[in-house]
Structure formats: structure tokens, C-alpha cells
């Protein structure tokens, strides 16, 4: 009964257009998109280069990228906290407990996921694509654009996975953001706080939003995988 009451209150809260609630949702989406805007180009470029180039230590780099996907976000948060704290190497930026710190943490969390997915997509690409581009006289930059275009569904899946990983993480955001109302309170940190206070309605409302985001993300991934399969099937 307690859960049903909380669920009803959560739905009412969502439908009422509660400014604080929707402010938290918007802040989470905004910082996540900003982080992806920074991380995606870097990760896609790095993932492509690691997949497409032969160099000494390549296997070690791939191993490190894949292993770093498993790093607990609280550990990333701890390292970033130490880096951004007054005595840390980036302390002068005064980013700790700000949205910039949350974005920085999200960038660090999303980079391995984006890189690993891009790397896998490029490694799975038909080698003839790059060879055809090369033999037709394309520059390395144009070859990269051509290959990435051919594996665009995989790259999009990488970005979507990165979005899902980042928006749902709590450890790093709470450590470097500080969970300040109206400033650095994200969906996940708000859920943690409200639950600890025994106020479940807002927590459940935010949980519903997270579930909705997860459902949309997975629907888009399934659609992309279908498109990619259709393309390969026709080839």
C-alpha cells in the first residue's frame, strides 16, 4: 500500500509540472548531453585510430579501454575529486561542486564506453571499405569519414550507450557535484537523497523518468540494430 501511495504521488508530481522536479530532470539531461558533446568526437576519433591503425602496444590499449569500462564510477569520482579539490592539480579552476565538475566526471565515465563501442564497430567493418577508399585516392581523413559513415549505426549505438551509462550514474555525480539543490542535483543524486530522507514520491517520479529514458534508449538501439542488419542483409 505504501508503495502504491508513493507511486500515485510520484505520477501526480510529474503531471503537476513541479518546477524543482523538472529542473532536476533538465539538469541531468543538459549535463549528459554536454558531456557527450565533448566525449563523443574524442572517443570516436580514438576508437577509429586504435581499430584502424597497426602500432606497437595496440592490444594493450584495447585491453585498457575495455577494462576501463568496468571502473566503478565512485573511483572515477574520487580521482576527479582529488584532482579538482583546492590542493589538486586542477584546483585553480574552482570546479568542485559545480555543473562543470559533473560534466567532467561524465566525460571520463563515457569515454571508455564510447571508445570501446566505436572500436568494436570499426573492427567489425568490412576491410574493403577502407581499401576501396584508399585505392580511389582518399586521404586518411576522408578514409576515416567513409569508414565511420559505413559503421554509423554502431557509432550511434556507442553514443546512445554512453548516454545511458552517464545519465544513470550516481557515484561520481554525488562526489564531485555535491548534490546542491538547483545547482548540481541530478536525477540519480536526488533519488539517493530523497530515499535517505524517506520521501519516496519525488524519488519514484525521477525513477520513472530514468526508466522512460532507458526504454527510449533501448528502443532506438533496437531500431538502429535493425537498420544495420537490413543494410548488411541487402549487401
Amino acid at each position, binding site marked *: 500500500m505504501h508503495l502504491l501511495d508513493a507511486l500515485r504521488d510520484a505520477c501526480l508530481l510529474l503531471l503537476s509540472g513541479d518546477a524543482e522536479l523538472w529542473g532536476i530532470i533538465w539538469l541531468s539531461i543538459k549535463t549528459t548531453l554536454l558531456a557527450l558533446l565533448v566525449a563523443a568526437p574524442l572517443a570516436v576519433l580514438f576508437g577509429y585510430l586504435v581499430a584502424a591503425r597497426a602500432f606497437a602496444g595496440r592490444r594493450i590499449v584495447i585491453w585498457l579501454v575495455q577494462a576501463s569500462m568496468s571502473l566503478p564510477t565512485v573511483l572515477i569520482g574520487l580521482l576527479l575529486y582529488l584532482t579538482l579539490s583546492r590542493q589538486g592539480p586542477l584546483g585553480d579552476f574552482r570546479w568542485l561542486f559545480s555543473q562543470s565538475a559533473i560534466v567532467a566526471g561524465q566525460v571520463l565515465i563515457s569515454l571508455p564506453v564510447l571508445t570501446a563501442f566505436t572500436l568494436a564497430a570499426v573492427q567489425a567493418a568490412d576491410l574493403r571499405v577502407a581499401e*576501396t*577508399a584508399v585505392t580511389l585516392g582518399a586521404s586518411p581523413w576522408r578514409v576515416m569519414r567513409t569508414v565511420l*559513415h559505413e559503421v554509423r549505426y554502431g557509432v550511434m549505438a556507442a553514443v546512445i550507450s554512453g548516454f545511458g551509462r552517464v545519465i544513470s550514474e550516481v557515484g561520481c555525480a554525488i562526489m564531485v557535484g555535491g548534490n546542491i539543490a538547483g545547482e548540481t542535483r541530478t536525477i540519480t543524486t536526488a533519488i539517493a537523497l530523497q530515499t535517505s530522507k524517506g520521501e519516496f514520491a519525488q524519488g519514484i517520479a525521477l525513477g520513472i523518468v530514468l526508466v522512460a529514458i532507458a526504454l527510449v534508449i533501448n528502443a532506438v538501439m533496437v531500431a538502429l540494430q535493425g537498420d544495420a542488419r537490413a543494410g548488411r542483409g541487402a549487401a
Partner: protein
Amino acid sequence: MTALLEIERLSKRFGERELFNIDRLHIQQAAAYVLTGLNGAGKSTLLRVLAGLEQAEAQRVCFLGQQMRLSPYSRAMREAVVYVHQHPVMFSTSVAHNIGYGLEARGLPKAEIARLVDEAMDWAGVEHLRGSKPLNLSGGEKQRIALARAKVLSPKLLLLDEPTSNLDGAAREQVIALIPSLVRSGSSVIMACHDRDLIALPGVQRLKLREGRLQMRQQQRVHAA
């Protein structure tokens, strides 16, 4: 006439195994060659080496009278040599974009690209495929578009890996019919193949890879036929 390509002591190894060790490869300008040999003899690898897609050792490489390198592949050769896979891959854009890809890479104006693409489509008989999705084309259609994509660049040397394998009937004949006109337009063509009709084309010279060595048998030139 200056030879198009002369290579001395060309060898390719995979670890301890030597795939081929060719004393001398001499390719004339505007001439057609078939490269034959048993499966695994190294025909495709030789074409890929000549295209700069695989590395090999060469004592001396001379392209149109100029000293060149195979690895790293010389820029002048990159602009003059085009390789077409046994199963050509199409970029998932449009047929016209596929054919104009190399022209775009060379920075030609859009109007010039459109004109040359139209000419190449007409040459390959693929105008009716303009609106088709490249990934949905048949093997023969892809092969003709790949030839148009190569020809539009006016390559000095065109390397075709089994251009008619897996094609039958009209598709195969259409591809074979395009080869002599490539030579007439000034390109030299080397085709790795087993296709008797390609081997029997007038003027085609025969290169045979056998036990790592290259043998050559000369016939009359295609454009003189």
C-alpha cells in the same frame, strides 16, 4: 614507349613462407594482362602489392620512368593505380556518389564531377541504376559500377581481382565487354582470373604465377586488334 611499370626482385613473405619472388615485372602502357596461377599461388596478393594495399620487398620500382617505392607507396602511383576487389564493395550512399568518390577525393569541382560521372555511367551501362541503393545491386551491377568508379579516374594501371568470378550469363559478358575499351582509353589492365573468355580476349598478354615465379607469354596488343 616508356614502360608503365618495371619492378625488379619483387618478393613477398608471410613469416617464413615466401609467397613469390619475381625477378622482373614489366608492364607496358595501355596493355592488358591476365594473371593466372593455381589457387593460393599469390595472384591476389601480387595485385594488392602493386596497389599498395600490402607491403613487399622490391629492389627497384620504376613507374613511367620515375623511381618509386612500394612501401611506403608513392603518391604518384596512388593517383595512377586503382585496384578493384573480387567482390567490389559499394559505399552506402548513392550510385553516382560511388562513381564520383575518387573525383571528390581529388578535389574536382562538383559540375565536373557530375559530367564525368554521367559519362562513366553511360560507359558502364548503369544509367538506369542511378536511383538504386548501391547495397541492393546484383554482383554484376556492382562490378560494372566498380569499373566505372575506377575508369572515371583515368588510371594508368587498373588491377582487377577476378572481375568475372561469381558472375554468369549477361552480367559476365557485360563486364568482359568493358575491358578492351579500358585499354583503348589508355589504361593498362592486369586481371587476376581463371576466366577463359578474358584470357582469350584479343591482345591480352598472359602472366603466370607458378611456384613463386612469374612467367610471361605475349600476344598482340588489344588496341591493335
